[in-house]
């Protein structure tokens, strides 16, 4: 495999999945082209200004900033459905429409759903 697409469709902090996806994506940067796709409730990870100190868990937005070379795409229709259109989003992310999102999946050698 030369490229991998991690698909995240669950909200951050509700389960370990978002953290797991970020970690797996980060280690995969070593030797592969990595894309992390946020879909469905996964798009909540795109919101800026996350503060997880009271939860006692790592700040997931910070992990996105730390691994700036990780390509993260956000499924726009999911953002629109959740009325996140007017929210401030993390600036390193790329917004993609339905077509581009699926093109990115198809263009990757493998798809890993967490």
């Amino acid at each position, binding site marked *: 495999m030369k490229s991998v697409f991690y698909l995240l469709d669950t909200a951050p902090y509700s389960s370990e999945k978002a953290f797991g996806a970020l970690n797996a994506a*980060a280690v995969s940067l070593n*030797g592969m082209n990595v894309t992390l796709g946020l879909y469905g409730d996964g798009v909540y990870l795109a919101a*800026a200004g996350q503060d997880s100190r009271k939860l006692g868990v*790592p700040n997931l937005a910070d*992990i996105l900033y730390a691994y700036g070379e990780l390509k993260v795409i956000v499924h726009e229709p999911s953002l629109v459905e959740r009325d996140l259109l007017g929210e401030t989003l993390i600036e390193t992310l790329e*917004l993609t429409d*339905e*077509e581009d999102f699926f093109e990115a999946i198809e263009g990757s050698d493998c798809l890993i759903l967490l």
Partner: protein
Amino acid sequence: MSGNESETKLVNFAMANATRRKITNFLANGDRSTEEIGGIVGKAMLDFHLKILQQASLIELEEETVKLSEYGRNFLKSKKEKVAEEIVDFSQAKPVEIAEVRQLLPCIADSSKFRVIANMAPPPGGILKVLEPLFPKGSYSDRTGGLITQKGEIITTIYGTGKVSIRMIKNESEAREVLESLRNIINEAIAKGVAPAPRKKVRVELMEIYKYLPQTNCGKCSEQSCYSFAIKLMAGEVTLDKCKLLKEPEYTGNQERLQVLTEYI
């Protein structure tokens, strides 16, 4: 959130997508039919994109005709004049403080090193671009709104929202040193109240790029040699990801270095 603020966010959202930027640029030269726009950006997602542009009040839809709104026209124009505005803003800039160092994460290129995330307050926002000349190897990216600087091995990125990410750090105290010096450089400039004189971009030498390429002339990038690949890179005719070998683990360090270098081209 004031009405004005939420409006700006809708506009930012609308303009954060390549297809929609294509549409607004296309409309800048005159009104178009939905048919014509579909011909340029494809029909499948057209309604979706037009709806978002309309919600941001950037365009107006009449029957089958799409045109830029008065607001959209001003917005596109103001984008071009933005640089001048930011320099005026500079005298209003407030000194920054490092609010907290939030977490250490492993570095990918070198497992003995870390990445660090810190917060800078107040968020530097638009003044970042103006600060670029303060750093000998600084480069501002319009796309992410981040300023990348490099000192020795350490690569630092400051984002407009105040996030600071540092790569290739030995430990937390080294991170604090880097952040301290960052803060001092920025605050000195702010204290002067005058924007630093813009400088010419750092010149990236062809040989420096070549030095970090695998130099195997494997031809997988469909260039004859790594040297000709370097020339094309300098000319902006190819992108770094065309070099397949760089993705191999043994070249991770090289790739990270080249990524930074190519930012300056």
